[in-house]
């Protein structure tokens, strides 16, 4: 289990290599990589700044990762979330889970990213072409996506 909050970029290939390396019981890996879009609704944006609550973020991510391991038979997992200023096209988040069987990896990866969007203390401020930073409002559809894991 690994949780990392960092300003710098990451390399998905080498992260996956490290995640599964040497573990021959692993039958599959599912990974999700979130990127910074160049549009906010119908408004063009150049990038965004990510803020978080140091301390609480790590604690909550470690807890949800542990919960994923309780719900599914996982051999390995990884959550990386970037903070600070990012440009359109940049990687912002990576979640990966590995298990003997594929269905556990699909479901647990989906669970983690849905949860991340609605519970982990991160906030995005999108940057307009004029250089103005606008805080992104939470979306109800994200909450609904997260709620389905409570059923």
């Amino acid at each position, binding site marked *: 289990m690994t949780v990392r909050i960092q300003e710098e970029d990451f390399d998905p290939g080498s992260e996956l290599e490290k995640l599964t390396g040497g573990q021959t019981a692993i039958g599959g890996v599912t990974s999700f990589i979130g990127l910074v879009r160049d549009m906010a609704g119908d408004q063009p944006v150049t990038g965004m700044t990510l*803020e978080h609550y140091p301390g609480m973020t790590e604690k909550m991510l470690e807890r949800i990762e542990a919960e994923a391991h309780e719900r599914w038979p996982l051999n390995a997992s990884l959550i990386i979330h970037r903070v600070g200023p990012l440009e359109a096209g940049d990687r*912002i988040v990576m979640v990966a889970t590995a298990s003997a069987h594929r269905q556990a990896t699909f479901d647990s990866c989906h669970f983690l990213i849905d949860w991340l969007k609605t519970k982990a203390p*991160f906030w995005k401020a999108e940057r307009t072409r004029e250089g103005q930073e606008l*805080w992104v409002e939470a979306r109800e559809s994200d909450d609904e996506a997260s709620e389905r894991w409570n059923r």
Partner: protein
Amino acid sequence: MKLLYFAWLKNKIGADSEEVTPPKEVVDVASLLEWLHGQGPAYAEALGDRRRIRVAVNQEYARPDTPLTEGDEVALFPPVTGG
């Protein structure tokens, strides 16, 4: 008591943290928000719509009836938008 503000709450209040000593009536999250709301126009504006505010006490999500004590770290922030 240490208060922390994040995202647009920080912008509206004009600080990312502050030490406060609320009166005795402040015993839980709901009464803290009520008291803070009366501390000036910036607080009134930031806390005007409670549905837009989330609260964590000592880094755990809290509810209106979550009790508070003197040494607590209380964070106020809007619904999160990570991932």
